[in-house]
């Protein structure tokens, strides 16, 4: 499975439609303090199905919707799409491309889509499990949290190994 690209719109400080293409190997993301680098990480965590606002550095899930700036009004919706290639799904072993999308409206209503068609969170989680991508597999290490793996209590560390089993 490969991460082909991610499209973000109205999510945190990304008010415009932004597309980030990922090559193989190592991509570095740089920029001044407060410019939006960690917001990019939050977007990835969110589309992977993160359900806790606190893990996205907010107090309510609506905190992820663009809240306005000095010169722009707040938006009504946040949307992030994750484009994966080489996902193994069908019985014949052929791989295909899959687009996972998550939306949240100011009203609190949320939508999940797989390849553009309405789906449930569970469908997204099934695709991710198939692709061996998931919240617990340490696909994202948030800022200041690298030491969490070590600081976790012995029983919590066990969960890390179990997830990988």
């Amino acid at each position, binding site marked *: 499975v490969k991460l082909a690209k991610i499209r973000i719109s109205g999510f945190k400080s990304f008010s415009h439609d932004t597309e980030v293409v990922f090559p193989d190997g190592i*991509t*570095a993301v740089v920029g001044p303090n407060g410019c939006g680098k960690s917001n990019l*990480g939050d977007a990835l965590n969110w589309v992977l199905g993160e359900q806790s606002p606190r893990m996205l550095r907010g107090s309510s899930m609506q905190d992820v919707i663009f809240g306005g700036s000095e010169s722009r009004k707040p938006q009504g919706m946040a949307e992030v799409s994750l484009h994966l290639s080489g996902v193994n799904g069908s019985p014949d072993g052929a791989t295909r491309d899959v687009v996972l999308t998550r939306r949240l409206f100011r009203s609190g209503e949320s939508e999940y889509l797989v390849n553009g068609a309405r789906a449930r969170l569970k469908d997204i989680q099934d695709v991710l499990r198939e692709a061996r*991508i998931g919240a617990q597999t340490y696909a994202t290490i948030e800022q200041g949290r690298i030491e969490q793996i070590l600081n976790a209590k*012995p029983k919590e560390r066990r969960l890390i190994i179990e997830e990988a089993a």
Partner: protein
Amino acid sequence: SRERFLEAFEAIRSSFQDVFRSLFHGGRADLRLEEGEDVLESGIEILVQPPGKRLGNVHLLSGGEKAMAAIALLFSIFRWHPSPFCLLDEVDAALDDVNVNRFTKMLRDFAAQTQFIMITHNKRSMESADLLYGVTMEEPGVSKLVSLRL
């Protein structure tokens, strides 16, 4: 199940011993199941010994040593159960120049099987990447992505 867990535990444990020694250029590390409990319930202890120092609990390490030990554990888990991609947000913040080089060298090894997205302020880390994106706020409060030349 019990067998799957033990198989994963032993594999990650042996990887951790290798990866730690290679990141710290010596020393040793180990993962141990807590004494006395049933294997399916017990927690996991992490013991580390940087080169020239005493063996001890991971909490006695310095800030930079802890980050390197955590990176070693992360990579050990990837050896057993590679993730297609991984985002690392300023994991190099506490590292000195020598350790940044060791970290980026190992990142290159693992980049053969995993796509890495590395958020960093460290110039040496930037130089080790294949592609560089900059995020700017030319318009205050609004993030914009630009592709930078390496």
